[in-house]
Structures are given as C-alpha cells and as structure tokens.
C-alpha cells in the first residue's frame, strides 16, 4: 500500500498501454464468442442470439474444410523442416571462421532480406518467376528447357513459399544461435584442442549441446505457430490458378469474414485456429520440458 501511494506516477504512466491491451487485445478475445452467436450489425456482438456450435458444424461439414486444414498443416510442416536447420548450420559455419571482414560481410548480406517487406518480397517472386520476363525462365530457356509458369502451378506453391522464406529469414534466425554460440565457455574449446579434437568433433560435442536450449525454445515457438502460417505472404502469393493448394485457414477467414461479411462463420474458424495454436504451444512446451529440461515457462 505504501508503495502504491509512493509510486502513484508509475500507475499514471501505464494507463495508456493498459487501455491499449484491453481494447485491442482482450476485448477481441472476448469478442471471439461471436463464433457461438448469429452476429448481426444491429444487435452487435453482445445482443446477437446464441447459436451454439452451428458455425463450427457448418465449417466441418464442408469437405473443403479438410482441404484447408491439410494445406495449412502441409505448408507449416514443410516450412519447419526447411527453415529450421539452415540458420543453425549457418551460425555454426560462421562460428568456425575468424572474426574479420568476410565474416561481417556474410552476416550483413544474409541479414539484409529480413528488412524487405512482404509486398516487395512477393513482387520479387512474381517478377523473377514470370513466364515472360523472369530470370528463372530465362535460365531454363538458356539450357534448353521449356518455361514454367511457377506461380500458376498448384504443385509448386508450397515450395516457392517455403524456400523464399528460407531466403528471407535464415540470416536473421542465425543471429540468436550465434549469440548462444558466443556464450559457450572458451575453456571447453581449449580442452578439446589439447585432446586433439577435430573441428567437426568440436561442433558436435561442444557447439551443438551449447546451443541446445536456444534450439529447443525456438522449436517450441515455431510449433506453437503451426496453424498461423504467414497469412500476409500466402495471401499475396495467391492467384486463381494456385488456389487449390494455397488456400489456408487464415486466408479463408479473411475472405469469409471481411469480404463476404460472414462474421460469425469466419470468427468460428478463426477461434478454432487460435485454440489449436494454443494447444500445440502448450503441448510442445510440456514435451520439451520432459525431454530436455528447457521450456518457455
């Protein structure tokens, strides 16, 4: 109590931020009950009648629902498998070479794509893979192969999505591992040197165990976001030709909810999405705690 009175100014300072979180984070959370109601504009979220699981049933009875879930999970798992190991390998490789210009250069270059906006990145993909103009098709032509309409091929969508992610984020993700590597006790390396360990042995027996906690934490966070595959990028990459593999839950929520004004239906799918994410995150955390002793909480 004494501290309350003494530090009243602290409470004054946090008012705007607390209001912000209540209005823009917690009210929408409460607002997700819209999924169990028949929302209409006149009665608003609170006044609209309850309909129970109607919209969830509507969604899951539709065979297209399973295609959406399948697409979402496939792109996510593909993304994890492709995007997860490379930053670790890059960090380990950078850690092997001496501090100097080359190391700095590699870091600056690999880190740069992180700053490119999603719109620009997708524009780059479209321009570079364009059947008429794109460098990829010029390359194919140069070696005598027929050109490919990359963005119009549903079979290629996930690969383009995932590998452009690898291109954009590998350097950025490596930073955390590099930091973890720099925190490893140097006496371990000296001991290994005296024992005649090779560079590869040092990586396997010192570096990897040293960054294991960082790897676990990042894996948990990644798993916790499986259902939330990068909506913004997928949405921009979609076109009528690739829609059968590129439609995921979040893009469907946007189209149903905001374009077709089916607020309750879209709200139900969105809620399903958030709940699955939360469950996955909690499970990944429990699992990691059991196995490695590292966890988020």
């Amino acid at each position, binding site marked *: 109590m004494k*501290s309350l009175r*003494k*530090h009243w100014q*602290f409470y004054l*300072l*946090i008012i*705007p*931020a*607390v209001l*912000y979180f209540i209005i823009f984070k*917690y*009210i*929408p*959370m*409460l*607002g997700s009950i819209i999924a169990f109601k028949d929302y209409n504009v006149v009665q608003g*979220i609170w006044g609209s009648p309850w309909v129970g699981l109607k919209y969830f049933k509507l969604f899951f009875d539709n065979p297209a629902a399973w295609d959406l879930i399948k697409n979402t999970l496939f792109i996510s798992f593909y993304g994890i498998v492709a995007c997860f190991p490379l930053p670790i*390998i890059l960090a380990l*490789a950078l850690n*092997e*070479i001496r501090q100097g210009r080359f190391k700095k250069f*590699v870091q*600056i*270059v*690999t*880190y*740069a*794509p992180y*700053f490119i*906006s*999603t*719109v*620009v990145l997708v*524009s*780059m993909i479209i*321009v*570079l893979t364009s059947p*008429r*103009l794109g*460098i990829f098709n010029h390359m194919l032509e140069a070696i005598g192969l027929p050109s490919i309409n990359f963005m119009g091929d549903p079979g290629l969508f996930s690969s383009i999505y995932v590998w452009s992610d690898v*291109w954009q984020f*590998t350097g950025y993700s490596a*930073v*955390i591992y590099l930091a973890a590597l720099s925190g490893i006790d140097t006496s371990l390396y000296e001991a290994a*040197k*005296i024992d*005649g360990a*090779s560079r*590869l042995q040092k990586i396997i027996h010192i570096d990897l165990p040293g960054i294991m906690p960082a790897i676990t934490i990042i894996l948990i966070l990644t798993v*916790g976001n499986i259902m939330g595959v990068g*909506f*913004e990028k997928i949405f921009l990459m979609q076109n009528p030709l690739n829609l059968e593999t590129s439609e995921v839950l*979040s893009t469907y929520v946007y189209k149903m*909810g*905001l374009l077709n004004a089916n*607020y309750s239906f879209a709200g139900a799918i969105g*809620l399903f999405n*958030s709940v699955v*994410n*939360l469950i996955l995150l909690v499970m990944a955390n429990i699992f990691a705690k059991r196995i490695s002793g590292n966890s988020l909480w």
Partner: protein
Amino acid sequence: MAKPMSIKESFGDKVFLAMVYTFLISVVIVVLYPLIYIVSSSLSSPLAVSSGKVWLWPVDFSLAGYKAIFNNSEVLVGYANSLFYTFFGTIISVTLTVMFAYPLSRKSFYGRNFLMIFILFTMLFSGGLIPEYLVVKHLHMLDTRWALIIPKAIAVWQVIIAVTFFRTSIPDEIVEASEMDGCSDLRFLWSVVLPLSKPIIAVLVLMYAIFQWNSYFDAMIYLKSEALYPLQVVLRNILILNTTSSATMDAQKLMEMNQVADLMKYSLIVVASLPVLIIYPFVQRHFMKGVLIGSVKG
C-alpha cells in the same frame, strides 16, 4: 584473447574449413544474386529487360523505370502517406512502450508480475482477425489514418526488450538513491532514465519504423480511400494485382509502354526498399542488439 597457434591444423580440419568457406560463399551468392539482379534490371533499358538480356549488370543503362515512377501520382501519394504513418506511428509506439516498460522494470512497482503475464498472454492467444476488425469498426476508425497507427501501436516483444534493458542498465540502487533526494518517478524517468537509454530507444525506433513502413495488411482491411493508402498497398496494386487507375494506353505506343511498365516494376521494388536500404548498415547492428536483449529474457 590471444590465439594459441601451437597446435597445427590437421589435414581433415583444413578440408573441413574449406567446406565451411564454400558453404558460406554459396549462401552469399544465393542471397545476393536476386537483389543485384533486381537493381541491375531497374537500371537497364526497357528493351533489354523485356528481351531477357540482363543477367548480372545493367544493360543499356537507362533511368526510364525511375522516370515512370515519378510520373505516377499514386506512388508519390503512397510514399508521402507511408512517411506520415511511419513518422507518427513510431513516435506514438515508442512513447507508449517506454511509458509502459519503465514501471514494469522497477522492483518497487507493485503489480508488475501480473502485468507481465497480462501482456505475455496476448502472445499466446489472440481474438483473431474478425473480432479485432469489429473493435476498430466500433471505434469508428475505419478508413481513417488512426486505423494504421493505433491498433498495432504496442508490440509485446518490444516491451520485453525495453523492460530487460531498463532493468539491467538502470539498477534499482540509483533509483533508490534518487528517491532519497526527493526526485519523483516522472522526473527521474525524464531526466535520468531517458538520457541513459539512447541505445534502447534507437532499437525501438528502428523496429517500429521498419514494421510500420513494411506493413500492408491493416491498410488493406481498414482503408477504403485511395488518398490514404500507404506505399505498400499501392505497390500491391501495381506489382501484384497489375492494376493502375491512371493507365491510359496510347494504342500506338502500347508495346513501348508495356515495356516501361515491366521495367517500372523493378524500379518500384528498389524505390520501395530504399529507405530501409539506406539505414540498413546502421540498423543492422542495433537490430542484432535488440534481438539479443530480447533473447536474454525469452
């Protein structure tokens, strides 16, 4: 630390190191090539680009693509809007973040653990797109500039970074000492904490500014008037949807104009990324610092 070179590298280690260098060089090439290609294309002549003559360096140097941009009013308006959103959005975001993070970093602040959980929970679970949209709608922010500045004003991650910084670099002992001298919390924040916090403020400014400059989604769902569109939305219309409202095609010059339109795509990509590219070398160091401060806690 001095490098003890007494033990010579074995043959196996030399081969391994050569592989490491090969790997790193190929990574650099893969990352750098598309970027160089785009810049080179943007500086080539329309004909060279559409006939696929550009491979690495500009062919028939020309600024036609850039000239086309400066004749496009949508792009110019978008650029101005983006500067506006980035400038004011960043000021609001950084101010709110610092005001929130400083009390959270103090032991004497009763309730900080609760508030920490209060904000961390929003990282785990969110209401989702539809309820968030309805909130903005009920606040009558749709189709106003506020819609791009307020709903995403505070990022939890940035708060965590700031809290960690304040806690580690402004120890509670100094605060207690200043309290003895009768210095109020607000005064202390203003005249002691802020001057000591330039590095973290730089990190916050850069993170929020780049986020704001690069974002398109909120603008797409909340804005209807073209006059309010930020650059990223204009880019999406031109580059991804291939629509420009100001396209008045002269039948005779159709071919040539198509070529210029193709070329303009490359120039647009460059121009849109320019502000970020200019500050990038400066940003990169600070960004890394931010990531590292955050990961200490996370």
